[in-house]
């Protein structure tokens, strides 16, 4: 299937790329035109400079080809003697310079527009984590993590890959259309980069610094992108998904999100089965990339949990490790990233899966107590 698509594409490139500019511009071979004023400006600049380059290339290569075909020794062509020509040499300093100046003018205009973060309607803070994104809506007091939702089994080739393989998350960033939204981008650990091609936004997330950008989306839809700065092992596995909604849908989403937060039952006692079910799911999202679905880990950096000292040892130490991580290793603390329910479920799962049959069940209330203890 892939190969047949390939042949189709090859004919498409040969035909489309050379002779039908309009065709080329609309295909997936090219940069998307996008759904924001900025992304469209960028696209136009890109096509302009592309055609400038194509024309320069064609002229240079055509002259060269002419010489290669006609000025051959094997054709008995005798070499000319010239090796200097002031006018010509000046001309090809001046002409390219003028082309560049003409190019620089529209580029500067777009750039200045892109940097104008004034008069925004609301602000979303984007924080990069190894290896997920966190979104905080500063006006609404809403914040959540956004994780890759492609199952490990698809990555390992044990399951067929879905249509949005590696470009899907559990909770997308939801934004309203027709609003100028200010994005504040930062990072919690290493440098990441937040990129959505359709929006024409790419911004490095630098730990300790907050950089600004903005977006104004014209059409509702789901727009997908990825982290574009090497940020460690799972750099390829931290996609960005933005869901753009109309104002009415967006308002509904906001209220729905707030209600959900209120409905949580803090004092419920969970059965072990409930914990194991949620635990397996959450483990798959947050832990399996490193410690693997089978709990066997990867080499020395990502130790096995199956039959491990931690998972079979004292509960308190296990909980502490998951909450706070281990300094100087790849193990991060999850206290701020996960809910009490999720933490309790994951720890219960780790202590009972893969033949770690400790029989322990950790309750969300246990985690909550520890959390409070930490704060006092």
């Amino acid at each position, binding site marked *: 299937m892939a190969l047949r698509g390939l042949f189709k594409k090859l004919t498409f490139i040969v035909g489309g790329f050379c002779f039908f500019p309009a065709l080329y511009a609309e295909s997936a071979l090219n940069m998307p035109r996008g759904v924001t004023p900025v992304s469209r400006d960028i696209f136009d600049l890109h096509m302009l400079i592309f055609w400038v380059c194509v024309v320069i290339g064609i002229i240079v290569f055509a002259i060269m080809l002419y010489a290669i075909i006609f000025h051959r*020794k094997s054709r008995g062509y005798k070499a000319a003697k010239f090796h200097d020509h002031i006018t010509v040499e000046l001309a090809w300093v001046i002409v390219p310079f003028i082309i560049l100046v003409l190019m620089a003018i529209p580029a500067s205009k777009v750039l200045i527009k892109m940097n104008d973060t004034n008069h925004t309607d609301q602000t979303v803070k984007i924080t990069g984590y190894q290896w997920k994104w966190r979104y905080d809506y500063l006006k609404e007091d809403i914040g959540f993590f956004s994780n890759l939702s492609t199952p490990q089994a698809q990555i390992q080739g044990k399951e067929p890959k879905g249509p949005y393989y590696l470009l899907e998350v559990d909770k997308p960033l939801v934004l309203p259309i027709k609003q100028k939204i200010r994005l504040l981008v930062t990072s919690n650990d290493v440098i990441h980069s937040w990129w959505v091609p359709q929006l024409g936004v790419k911004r490095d997330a630098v730990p300790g610094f907050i950089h600004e950008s903005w977006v104004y989306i014209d059409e509702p839809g789901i727009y997908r992108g990825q982290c574009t700065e090497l940020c460690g092992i799972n750099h390829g596995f931290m996609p960005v998904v933005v869901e753009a909604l109309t104002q009415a849908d967006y308002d509904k989403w906001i209220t729905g999100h707030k209600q959900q937060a209120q409905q949580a039952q803090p004092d419920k006692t969970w059965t072990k089965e409930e914990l194991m079910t949620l635990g397996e799911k959450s483990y798959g999202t947050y832990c399996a990339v490193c410690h693997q679905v089978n709990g066997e880990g990867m080499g020395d950096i990502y130790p096995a949990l199956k039959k491990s000292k931690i998972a079979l040892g004292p509960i308190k130490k296990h909980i502490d490790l998951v909450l706070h991580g281990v300094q100087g290793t790849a193990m991060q603390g999850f206290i701020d990233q996960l809910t009490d329910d999720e933490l309790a479920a994951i720890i219960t799962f780790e202590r009972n899966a893969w033949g770690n049959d400790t029989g322990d069940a950790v309750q969300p209330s246990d985690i909550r107590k520890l959390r409070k203890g930490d704060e006092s």
Partner: protein
Amino acid sequence: MEYANPWQRIMRWVTTTNHKDIGTLYLMLSLVMLFIGGGMALIIRGELFMPGQQFIDPSFYNQMITLHGLIMVFGVIMPAFVGLANWQIPMMIGAPDMALPRMNNWSFWILPFAFTILISTLFMNGPAPNFGWTFYAPLSTTYGPPSTDFFIFAVHLMGLSSIMGAINIIATILNLRAPGMRMMKLPIFVWSWLITAFLLIAVMPVLAGAVTMMLTDRHFGTSFFNAAGGGDPLLFQHIFWFFGHPEVYIMILPAFGVVSQIIPTFSRKKLFGYGSMVAAIAVIAFLSFLVWAHHMFVSGISLGAELFFMYSTMLIAVPTGVKVFNWVTTMFRGSLSFETPMLFAVGFVVLFTIGGLSGLMLSIVPADFQYHDTYFVVAHFHYVLVPGALFGILAGVYFWIPKWTGHMYNEAMGKWHFWLSVIGVNVTFFPMHFLGLAGMPRRVPDYALQFTDFNMVATVGAVIFGFSQLLFLVNIIKTIRGGKPATDEVWEGAEGLEWTIPSPAPYHTFQTPPEVR
């Protein structure tokens, strides 16, 4: 040469101060590294043949891209050009040897140790360096694996070697020219190396500074690159690219020089615009210090900085254009023939120009917001480094190897090597433009399904390109061992002092300086 025992045979190479021996050593090291770094490239391309994890995990993938980059830059391209400089500069300017022969020996013999240390990190407990060849902080400092310290030491050694080599080249060119060899009569290859050597002296200490700051951040509690301690991760990028951008020209200027020797030879016509060629190299070298932040357009630098670095980067297109136009004009109305060195030189001009044009596209800051850190960039810099720098080296080796060995290489095999390489390079790297534009980030071990087709094509191309380099290896070995004897002049249109001495070049040449008219 006759040796009493094998020990003497080895010690001859260890203790040699002869520029030809040292040139050979550099080129041999580079050849070995080419196959190591190339093997890593094939591992990378193999993993990327299809979406999903194939045979290496993401951790090992990151180690591969890091070492592939470091080895190709510091282990292949740079030593190969120093090797060519060692062999050719004394012969081209009529000098008996390099100005500082003992230092020359040192500057080579540091390198095998540096690369042993670097490659040994693969066999250590814990991962080898896994932060990319650009080793951005804090991924390489706070989050770097323990082997990072070995990487830092290796980079220091490479820097030391490069600085010593550069000092030697400058001293040789400025002091040991034959009588009558005025500066504006220098062969263009010598000019290109003179300017490159100044670039090396200017920026290698900056690299050394960057890795030293990393070291103290890692172990001595400083916070140069750590915001929590009052530092700035972007400071690292400024320092790195202040080294890194001139470094790019360090890897390409000598190739300009090689090609500027070869094209006139096989066009049987003088180089067009010698003066403007020299000026263009000097201008490019100067501008290379003023464009570093174009690698950081999306990192959050200010609008003013973005505008400045956009204009300065666009400006580099002017002297680069002059070079390309001059090469084409040299060929125009020449009497062309296409032996292997000329094929590689013409391939260089065409494909380097494509890389240069995509570079011009990258300089447009708003567009760079979409291109940055995607496969478009990977395509761009591989076009300037593989059919650019590497083709320059291959062209130079085919051009001069008859002089070095006294034998002609196998022309048919050379032509096969060229055509397979050209096809392989384009099949590998051209589709990467499309991948980048369609949204595939660089340095990812796995990708979304819509990128599958072009990745498959690229992998097929990489296999073709990789294995066709074996032809080069075989051809070189056969040429060293024997082959049709080369004349002193070797090429019909050859001009310059190196073609006046016998082939193979005697162990000592120009002990009495030649007179240059």
